[in-house]
């Protein structure tokens, strides 16, 4: 009969209306500033720079190779290379960024900078509450604001950080082995040269 569907529909909405006062399951809203959902491990928002140890400036992994700057699709990274050098995690002297700025109002969270970084120096953060009252300076983050410790990285992305650490350790071991082998070879060569000298 005409009007039957109307009554059914009204009953359904009435059930929802009353039900929302009595069953908390119906209300799926998370009231954000007070209530929060824990972020998923794969959450990514804006990049940050990883440093080892306690001193952010000395520990920065970035060698200012500028690959990320070139690869960044919206061109939101600005890097200035340092004139001097400091040792990296393997001990080799490397340049470091004298300036490293990311304009987070331009950044589109694509993670390409992270994919291309050969030094595991730039990673994605989960921090998203970055609003500021200064829309020009406030949204341009410098290297000090971007620098976050490896411990922080472990906290937000444990699995990924462990993989990254393992990769770095393997590379360091490889490098150490290589330097050791080179040193031994050099030593052997020196010994051989000495023996040859004696023989002559």
């Amino acid at each position, binding site marked *: 009969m005409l009007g039957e569907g109307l009554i059914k529909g009204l009953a359904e909405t009435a059930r929802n209306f009353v039900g929302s006062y009595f069953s908390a399951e119906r209300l*799926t809203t998370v009231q954000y500033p007070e209530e929060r959902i824990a972020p998923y491990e794969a959450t990514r928002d804006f990049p940050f720079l990883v440093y080892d140890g306690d001193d952010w400036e000395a520990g920065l992994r970035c060698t200012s190779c500028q690959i990320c700057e070139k690869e960044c699709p919206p061109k939101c990274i600005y890097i200035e290379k340092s004139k001097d050098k400091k040792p990296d995690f393997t001990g080799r002297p490397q340049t470091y960024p004298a300036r490293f700025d990311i304009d987070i109002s331009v950044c589109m969270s694509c993670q390409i900078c992270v994919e291309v970084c050969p030094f595991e120096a730039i990673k994605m953060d989960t921090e998203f509450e970055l609003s500021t009252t200064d829309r020009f300076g406030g949204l341009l983050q410098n290297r000090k604001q971007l620098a976050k410790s490896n411990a922080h990285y472990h906290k937000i992305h444990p699995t990924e950080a462990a993989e990254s650490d393992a990769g770095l350790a393997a590379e360091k071991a490889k490098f150490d082995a290589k330097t050791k082998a080179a040193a031994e070879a050099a030593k052997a060569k020196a010994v051989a040269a000495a023996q040859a000298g004696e023989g002559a």
Partner: protein
Amino acid sequence: MFEKLDQIFVLLLHWILGWLPAGLRPVTGVLLSVVTIVCVFPALFAICVLLERKGLGRIQNRYGPNRVGPFGVLQPIADGIKSLTKEDIVPLSADAVVHFLAPVVLVVAAFLGFAVLPMGRNMVLVDMDASLLFYFAIGASTELSVFMAGWSSRNKYSLLGAMRAVAQMISYEVPLLMSSVVVVMMTGSLSLVKIVEVQNQYTHGLPHWYIFTPWGFAAFILYAVAGTAETNRSPFDLPEGESELVAGYFTEYSGFKFALFFLGEYLAMLSISGLGATLFLGGWSAPFAFLSWVPSWIWFFGKMMTSIGVFIWLRGTLPRLRQDQLMNFAWKFVLPLTLINLFVAALWRFMGEGWLRWAVCSAILMVIYILMARVGMRREHLGPREYRYAE
């Protein structure tokens, strides 16, 4: 004591007037009443908006506004401040004068309707003999303001919305009037005060409301349908269908003019609810004889707000109609039913007291309703669509 409470507003007015010289009394009395109406109904509008947003939220299993003040009760104030401080943009090619006048005309017309509604015992601003006629004459002028808004904006969405609105309002104006005519036939008067007085009688403690008769019940349902369409409320909100026409006829309005349109729409809802309560639900009379001590204005406003609640409930339930469905429903279903209802009401009047007229009138209405639903509102089964492509 309850007598005094019932007449508190009337007594207050007389007390204030007592301080004034006799010459000023009539003018001041009218002015004070007008000011009261102009203050009370916007306040009710604020309450309605809050109720609507909370109610719709709950229907959709959301919280609704709950940030401004305890439980979000101050939300209307925040909304008001926001709309007052927003920039008032008038399109460059708009007809500025008409564009300005349209919301004003709408609100004025909406307020004028309240002048003749009896809101309590002795509480009516103008007690004229043809108040129902006056009400419908004023109600029809809202169509003018809607078309003014749509035409002057020089925007195709506005114009489409306005054309839809005019077509819809004129179509539903007819059943709205026709469903009210039965009440006039029974009462023998166009005066709303008289209509309420006739309904304010009790037999065995039950009221003589018109809704408790077969023709009155049918007329009330038809009135509710036509009233919903007349106020452009969902499911008849085609003129302002936001998914189709941005905002319909008030697309080009911003700031306080937009708020005025919003106010006008809610005032129309309130007044159509008030008229419905007056015509069919006994106006300010109590639902049971033993409750007649409760002040009359509480009943009137209670009935009005209950209707608003039903409006909100319907909005939360029903999807929007299509234009052809809207027109079919008006001309092929609602209007014939109101005409038949006129006949049924006449039959009721001349069959005399007794159970026979109850049986006959109810049977006629039921049979007609079912037949009309089967024949008139039959779904047309369209075959699969054939597409022709350009070669």
